[in-house]
């Protein structure tokens, strides 16, 4: 620990706080600073992670013994649906967005994102979407048809309450938030890199952000259309998914999964990017096969659009379609495998320091492999006929999303927390958190493989004592309780360390990328002078001498002055409340559609007012 805290100070003589920021509520409400927006995303997403965790705990406790009556079947259906929706859209995606916001501009040597107000808009719109999606707990009942909402149980006839309307409108609004953010990051990454940072010198996390953003921008329009059709079916009486009106329920499945499969890569690629940053830092070796890791990420993104019907192998697509999608799915395992071997290659012969971040990143590899193996098994249509809609799938999902995404993102939290807060998280508490989570996660989810192969279907609210599933359900629930303990310790660690953690200087980990060259926390303008970069590991070049560059020593950034290149004062964008107003406009439209149409019309005017004021706001 001491060794880490005294690693070469790069740009900061004294620890802790540079200029004191305005910390008023209004400053947070009107912020357009990517670092603050990142914190907003991070805190919100973590709260929703806890909400999703509570929903999961209720599910698992209901299933802990056979014939349990903790919750009734209707509530159980809402819990399973909302657990998935909350975790995917309100926890994992926004937590990823938090990392995009905090790390990407810093890693490319930029002072902010390309469109700071659009960035703020994304966050507030996300909150609006989260509110709509969860409104059912307050009034009318939550969506209860599973997170993928297969038609036509979602029709007005079979789901008469407002639950599925919260689903269509909530996801639609969340889609707007994601699209806005993704467009922002595409422009930022392509157009705001520091001089010398070619695409192939970008950190892998930035590459994964770019690929993920392109996936979002191309996949979300599809779910937008699907949700419009579902909303029209429910509210106006069309029959896009209604067989009695001539429609085809399977069209929903196609549209949902054309979105849904890229969506799962949207969930995993950023975590893979985080792992690709952590492993080299704590192995004190460059990432093995940087080019291959990047190309694999791009290949995964591209192939993601060609495999969607592997979610539909049990729907009777026919042998040609089945074979085509099976082949494409197996193909996608190749770039994934390439990444795994490159990560192992990074660790190989490295001088490894097992900080908590490193523990999570290394565990990610192991646990993700398990999830990947069950995934490859799902690539086989005949196997899927048995596995589909059983707990085998649930096992796969949680190994890749919990063991994969969440482990990667926890690693990222431990890694970048010092940069954001100026303090290190406690390593001892961190290690306890890690081991409880690692052990708890495997106890919770590995038995689900057995349950699935044993025939236990998904989303059943209870089971008979004679099914033979009792033992592993009990074990699985106990694993979840372990995870809960670990999470509580994590929360305690954060709360304590923000005030009392060891002060972190600019570069506590002796890392290689640009964000570690500025103070922790960074000043509002990030870099006093935009650095010039000559490799993918600029800080290692500056600290230890470049292997192959003559420019590397010329432009190391210097802390202290608030002045830019020519002694000019650096102008940062002004705060603004128009992004919030515009997001509120969307909220008013959505709630108007749900409850009172005149309000929706007012909402349209509010939206236009917000957009107009935003467009003509003076650039201070």
């Amino acid at each position, binding site marked *: 620990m001491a060794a880490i805290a005294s690693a070469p100070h790069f740009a900061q003589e004294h620890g802790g706080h540079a200029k004191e920021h305005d910390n008023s509520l209004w400053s947070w409400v009107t912020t357009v600073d990517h670092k603050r927006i990142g914190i907003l995303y991070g805190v919100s997403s973590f709260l929703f992670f806890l909400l999703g965790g509570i929903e999961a705990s209720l599910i698992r406790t209901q299933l802990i013994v056979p014939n349990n009556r903790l919750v009734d079947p209707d509530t159980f259906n809402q819990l399973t649906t909302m657990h998935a929706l909350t975790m995917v859209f309100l926890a994992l995606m926004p937590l990823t967005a938090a990392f995009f916001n905090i790390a990407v501009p810093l890693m490319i040597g930029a002072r902010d994102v390309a469109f700071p107000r659009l960035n703020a808009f994304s966050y507030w719109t996300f909150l609006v979407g989260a509110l709509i999606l969860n409104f059912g707990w307050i009034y009318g009942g939550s969506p209860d048809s599973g997170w993928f909402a297969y038609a036509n149980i979602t029709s007005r006839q079979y789901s008469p309450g407002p639950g599925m309307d919260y689903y269509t409108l909530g996801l639609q609004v969340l889609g707007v938030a994601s699209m806005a953010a993704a467009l922002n990051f595409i422009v930022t990454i392509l157009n705001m890199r520091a001089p010398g940072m070619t695409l192939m010198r970008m950190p892998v996390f930035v590459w994964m952000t770019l690929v993920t953003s392109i996936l979002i921008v191309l996949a979300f329009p599809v779910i937008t259309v699907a949700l419009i059709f579902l909303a029209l079916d429910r509210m106006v009486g069309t029959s896009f998914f209604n067989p009695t009106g001539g429609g085809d329920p399977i069209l929903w499945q196609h549209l949902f999964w054309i979105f849904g499969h890229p969506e799962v890569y949207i969930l995993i690629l950023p975590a893979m990017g985080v792992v690709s940053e952590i492993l080299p830092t704590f192995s004190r070796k460059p990432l093995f096969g940087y080019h291959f890791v990047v190309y694999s990420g791009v290949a995964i993104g591209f192939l993601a659009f060609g495999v969607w*019907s592997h979610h539909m192998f049990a729907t009777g697509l*026919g042998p040609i379609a089945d074979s085509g999608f099976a082949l494409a799915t197996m193909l996608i395992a190749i770039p994934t495998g390439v990444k795994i071997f490159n990560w192992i290659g990074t660790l190989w012969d490295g001088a490894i320091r097992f900080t908590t971040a490193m523990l999570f990143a290394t565990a990610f590899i192991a646990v993700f492999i398990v999830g990947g193996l069950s995934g490859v098994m799902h690539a086989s249509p005949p196997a899927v006929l048995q596995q589909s809609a059983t707990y085998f799938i649930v096992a796969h999902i949680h190994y890749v999303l919990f063991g994969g995404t969440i482990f990667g993102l926890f690693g990222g939290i431990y890694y970048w927390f010092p940069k954001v807060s100026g303090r290190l998280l406690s390593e001892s508490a961190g290690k306890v958190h890690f081991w409880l989570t690692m052990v708890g996660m495997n106890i919770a989810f590995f038995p689900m493989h057995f349950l699935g192969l044993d025939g236990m279907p998904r989303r059943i609210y209870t089971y008979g004592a004679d099914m033979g599933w009792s033992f592993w359900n009990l074990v699985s629930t106990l694993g979840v309780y372990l995870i809960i303990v670990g999470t509580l310790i994590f929360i305690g660690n954060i709360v304590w360390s923000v005030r009392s953690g060891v002060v972190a200087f600019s570069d506590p980990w002796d890392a290689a990328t640009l964000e570690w060259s500025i103070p922790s926390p960074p000043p509002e303008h990030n870099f006093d002078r935009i650095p010039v970069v000559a490799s993918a590991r600029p800080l290692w070049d500056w600290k230890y001498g470049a292997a192959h560059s003559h420019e590397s020593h010329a432009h190391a950034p210097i802390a202290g002055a608030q002045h830019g290149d020519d002694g000019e004062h650096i102008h940062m964008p002004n705060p603004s409340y128009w992004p919030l107003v515009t997001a509120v406009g969307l909220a008013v439209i959505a709630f108007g559609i749900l409850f009172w149409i005149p309000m929706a019309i007012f909402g349209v005017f509010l939206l236009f007012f917000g957009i107009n004021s935003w467009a003509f706001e003076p650039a201070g």
Partner: protein
Amino acid sequence: MAEHTGGAASAAHAHPTIRQYIVVAVILTIITAVEVAVFYIHWFGVFVYPILFVLSASKFVLVGAYYMHLKYDPPVMTWLFVGGLVIATATIGGLWALFNGFGG
């Protein structure tokens, strides 16, 4: 403000003239007329589909290259747009094949 000779045209690359824009418009009109003619002339049989596809694709390319300035702009914008287009076309093709071709 610094001196400008006006927007994107101040950069050193070529830029269509109004005359060229009008020429493009005339070509677009002719292609549309050909499309309609092809539709009415029943001689082509099943070939009418690829012919119509090629004709509307040419209109698409003309508008994109000249009116949307892609021909004169840095290639990244063409890549972004064509990328989206390719994925969209592949998806349409895939859905069509699944519904009307091989399955569903």
